[in-house]
């Protein structure tokens, strides 16, 4: 996911720019989550 692009569509470019640091952290977090393999028994 490109959080900045999604934020731009949702909140506008100005707001997305203000949120740039948080959006970069969001992208990094989601990438981290997706990098850890899960088993079928890993229920929420």
């Amino acid at each position, binding site marked *: *996911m490109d*959080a900045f692009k*999604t*934020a731009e569509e*949702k*909140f506008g470019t100005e*707001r997305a720019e203000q*949120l740039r640091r*948080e*959006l970069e*952290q*969001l992208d*990094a*977090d*989601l990438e*981290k*989550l*997706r990098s*850890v393999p*899960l088993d079928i028994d*890993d*229920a*929420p």
Partner: protein
Amino acid sequence: MRPEDFSLAQAAALIRTGTLSPVEYAESLLQVMDRIEPRVEAWVTVDRETVLMEARKCESEAKNGRFRGALHGIPVGIKDIFYTKGLRTTMGSVLFKDFVPESDARSVTKLREAGAIILGKTVTTVFANLDPGPTRNPWNVGHTPGGSSSGSAAAVAARMCPAAIGSQTVGSVGRPGAFCGVASLVAPQQRISLQQVFPLAWSLDHVGVFARTVEDIELMLDAMAELPIQRVSARPPYRIGLVRKFFYENATSEAATLNDRLADALAAAGFQVEEAQLPAIFDAHPAILRTILRSETASIHERLFREHAETYGPKLRALIETGMLVDAGDYVRARRLRRRYQREMARLFEQFDVLMTPATPGAAPAGIHATGDPVMNGPWTLADFPTMTLPHALSASGLPIGVQLAAAPLREGLLLQVCKSIEQVVGFNRRPEI
């Protein structure tokens, strides 16, 4: 000894023997409040008439040998996200400035049933997130008391009440407890009800307690517990797992050195202290925590934010907006990873009774524009470990430094026992000169 200097246990015992009048006790605390509150700003709402009326009732009952419970006649502070019947509850937000609940939070009901008097509502950061309230640290009013349970920690430290309750979603009990030099406990979610506590993130929120001794924490916990605490017969030597990885990387050299010094003192006193090695999944904990937090906070504030976005502070606004971008698949993934994280982290307790880390990166930072970094507390909140912080030293700048101790899920009995022993070794008897 002045009444405000009594621990909760001391005051409760003196009330029981008729030596301490609940009315005089409440009046003493209100006088302390009059003197100190202008400089600390720990309270949002205090209804003096009701407090004294309740104190008179408790006194009359005590004279007739009737005691409601272990907290009979004890005034306590309640963080302003816990609903209190007939007493304004603001969540730290202008949107709720006139909100008066019609019922108590379940945990408040249990405190009343135990005989506690609700002294007042303590300051919370806005909706219990990071946008700060006005509270100042009683040790140095130029410093933050931490948050989001800012008022509860500060009020106990400043002797305005012997105990208070708060909540933790990442670090909102352990951090202010340590910054304010008081003991704190974060209970597991199953232990104390969150019913009618305004949420920040449902699956991360926990009820917490502030007091000046472990014994006092125990009395408050017993009063609020939905499940009885299992008392343990574990004998010393207690096994302490000292966690340096990640925690020392995020600590000041002063905090790390003081933590090591405490570990050495505990080892010399007969505790078994060894370094604990964290499982690989620990590295994912910030991503898991933040994803759950963002998503749930965004959901909780969906309607309010849509209608009143202009009233939201910058930090909460950013949290909600990034939460709106997390899709269901990623949220579920985070929840699945959390369960695995909890399982793998809990295995540490096969080797240790408690895990020991610094409670905060360092002493309370200067300024009240921010409430400090919850980096040390988040790992245990995510794991749902019962966690205590205890003050054990002063920094070079004269501010308290805390140690954080976590136990296996639902093992508060063991945690309290170990912490009582640590408390005796530490012997921290300093207080803010305010």
